[in-house]
């Protein structure tokens, strides 16, 4: 059974802080790891990571994957109140059984 574990489950910070969200996984035939942001609606895609050690960056957000240790981190610098959301990590299985398995998410609250 594929397993995705995120930590922390919840995090409260002040605007301007930097946060690191963690995701570890166990999956048969790993293909990629994806990060999504979910506010009160559908998850929106942030990053897809397939190779170890290559940082992906988008503005204040960045993410990296370690395939040897089976984890990924999502960093958000200079947080803003608009970053408040649930951040979901998901792993995509390869082969012929296409399945995206989600972790329980990290609820980030950024206070002004």
């Amino acid at each position: 059974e594929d397993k995705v574990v995120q930590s922390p489950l919840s995090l409260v910070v002040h605007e301007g802080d930097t946060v690191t969200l963690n995701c570890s996984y166990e999956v048969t035939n790993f293909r990629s790891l994806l990060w999504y942001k979910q506010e009160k609606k559908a998850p929106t895609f942030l990053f897809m990571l397939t190779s170890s050690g290559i940082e992906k960056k988008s503005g204040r957000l960045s993410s990296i994957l370690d395939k040897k240790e089976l984890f990924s981190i999502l960093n958000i610098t200079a947080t803003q109140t608009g970053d408040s959301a649930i951040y979901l990590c998901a792993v995509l299985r390869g082969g012929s059984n296409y399945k995206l398995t989600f972790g329980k998410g990290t609820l980030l609250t950024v206070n002004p």
Partner: protein
Amino acid sequence: AAGVIQSPRHLIKEKRETATLKCYPIPRHDTVYWYQQGPGQDPQFLISFYEKMQSDKGSIPDRFSAQQFSDYHSELNMSSLELGDSALYFCASSLLNREAFFGQGTRLTVV
């Protein structure tokens, strides 16, 4: 840019009724996923399709079935609805092995 379209957006049904949820993937996407998300929970995988063939199946009750049609749209059929089926149902689509994009979801309430 075209996104994943789901309909209806909201649905209220009584226990033991049947519901059909529809999903129209992003054009040229060949993979469709269905997820169920209860309040405060992560999305639970139900079923996926690749090129109109079922690819993988998750914790989907026998009362639920899904298919993907020749035009690539997909339908999730839910029969003998129970109160516990009340949830947000998401459809997502992708190119094979690429990032999945989610529709806005159908909120199903069973009363």
